[in-house]
């Protein structure tokens, strides 16, 4: 994929040669059949996996993406074997993927790469980061070097997030702001 920003241990970097290929459906799968590093919709992913992967006994080389209509709970059986999860923003105003990401991180314990795909724009990147996304496929017509500035956001968070599980009132006593 192009226009990728990756958070690696908190360091944001622009990825020049991202290995992942985003597959929308069957047709695209046929075009890219020679590649391993595909991100597939769940149904297609299941079709492509050998039994060992489906039974959770072997690592998969392929990732899964979910639309906001999908439930992240469905990924539970394979969280140990998949290399990457992508969540789709069909429109940047559709906020469902924020909850999906938060659930994947805080409830399902997903620690691998979590990628935002679709209508991914600079001014929402910090919210995505706070909800647990760790890579961002910035919309194709936008400059990724500009977009990366959007990761910073506001330094004060009253509540909690996927990356800061404690609300401010639990953090308040420890570190005073500069």
């Amino acid at each position, binding site marked *: 994929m192009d226009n990728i920003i990756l958070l690696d241990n908190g360091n944001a970097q622009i990825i020049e040669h991202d290995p992942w290929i985003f597959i929308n459906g069957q047709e695209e799968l046929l075009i890219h059949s020679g590649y391993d590093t595909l991100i597939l919709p769940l149904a297609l992913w299941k079709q492509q996996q050998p039994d060992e992967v489906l039974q959770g006994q072997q690592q998969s080389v392929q990732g899964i993406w979910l639309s906001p209509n999908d439930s992240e709970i469905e990924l539970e059986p394979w969280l140990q074997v998949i290399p990457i999860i992508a969540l789709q923003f069909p429109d940047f105003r559709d906020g469902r993927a*924020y*909850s999906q990401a938060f659930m994947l991180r805080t409830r399902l314990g997903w620690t691998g790469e979590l990628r935002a795909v679709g209508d991914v*724009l600079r001014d929402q990147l910090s919210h995505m980061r706070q909800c647990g996304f760790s890579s961002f496929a910035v919309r194709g017509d936008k400059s990724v070097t500009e977009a990366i500035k959007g990761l910073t956001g*506001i330094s004060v968070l*009253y509540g*909690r997030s996927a990356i800061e599980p404690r*609300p401010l*009132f639990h953090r308040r006593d420890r570190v005073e*702001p500069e």
Partner: protein
Amino acid sequence: MYNYDDYDHRLVRERVAQFRDQVTRRLADDLSEEEFLPLRLQNGLYLQKHAYMLRVAIPYGVLSSDQLRTLSYIATTYDKGYGHLTTRQNIQFNWIQLEQTPDILECLAAAQMHAIQTSGNCVRNVTTDAFAGVAADEILDPRPLAELLRQWSTLNPEFLFLPRKFKIAIYSAKQDRAAVKVHDIGLHLYSGDNGEMLLQVYVGGGLGRTPMIGLSLKADLPWYHLLSYVEAILRVYNRYGRRDNKYKARIKILVKALGIETFAEEVNQEWQLISRGPTQVTSQEYERIAKNFSAPNYDFFAAHNFEYNTQRSRHPEFARWTSKNLVAHKISGYAAVIISTKPGINSPPGDVTAQQMVAIASLADRYSFGEIRVTHEQNFVLPNVPKADLFRLWQALECLGLATPNAGLLTDIIACPGGDFCSLANAKSIPIAHAIQQRFEDLDYLHDLGEISLNISGCMNACGHHHIGNIGILGVDKNGEEFYQVTVGGSQGNNSNLGKVIGPAFSAYEIPDVIEKIIEVYTLHRRSNESFLALFQRIGIEPFKAAVYAKKVIAGAAN
């Protein structure tokens, strides 16, 4: 009142810088209007007919005198010298330039204010009883929990792109003055059998196109679970609320589609998983916030000043004002004073000039410990006035044109800005309000009628809360012409009711006659002190219908 600490200051300052950058990018066309729209809305900025409108948050309606001076400065410097109080305890400026908004927000930040989430599909300003902390019928002070909710919902990254706007209101008194049952979440804070703070939670109330009264979701939520419970509601809503049609996207539609039992089950399931987590509010945090709302230094000898009664008997106009514009105070010798922004045809309901703001700020300093409130009826309140000072305060208000003795009366009209400003409106609101106020100018008559609420909305979005006015007026579009649909029998508060449509809509010209006919039915049928609402519930809509449309027939026949 709540004082910003370093975190609060840092948040609003960074937010201003962020928005300044976004405005710069918009002006350079690096951001499209489509991409910019939700960003500006979440900073309170709407595009209206003539200019941008900036809605400034007044958290739970509480202002310091210095904050009011800042609002006055903004009105003078960046607007046309006035502001408009809204039905959600905020203030709007109608003549704003996009380029200047970052500077305005910076001004606000310096006065511990902001415009964050006063619009957009996110959790809006949390509202409460304008008399919180002072009302004689108060059970507990709702302001600490309102502030807790304000903080928690501000820039909460998971819930900034909800299906639609989300409004929360909380009250804790015998009388519900916060209209909590017409909010997405309504909260009633009360004291349990063992003195613990509990919350009755309502969900799915709201006006707009599909008006609904909120349903009980949980009767006895311990206060320290407030944040996790609201989080559970919002998560269910964020995931399952409709996004295909903006008119069906409010949480009330989801609640209706699932049924309250199923919805409650969904929320409960989610809540069980997070309730014991870190969002459980500590007593320490409650105390930290609550100490901001500690009572001022009341003079406990104020109760022993008897001048007030003498002044009342000497000055009938003063007495009339005190009979309507005071609210009983929990401290003997004090009163909460309603400053009506509805003087009649000289000024649209809710509008306040920059000069009036400065004057009210000074009066607040002199007579009310420097604090001002905004009511959802679009009036100001001085919450802590010693009774002995009331006469001097009244005289000062008289000079400012702010002593109209009509709080709660027919001319205390709640109205949105309507078609004069708003691009969503089907019809104008302000001229209708003025025509009614002009028809009912006689104060003796008004006082004799007693409390009748009249609400006007310029369109179905119902910013003027017309459904819950005893008399409601809704602007509708009929083939490009402005018409007005009238409802009767609505009410807000503990026994919230949606008004019933009286029949076919009227032209603007007919409205004062229609209202007069409705009032005549009331005066004809009422028993001694029977309220308009009680009468309506007794006799129903038919007599009103008959009176209003009979006249139309006769008028038609005469032509």
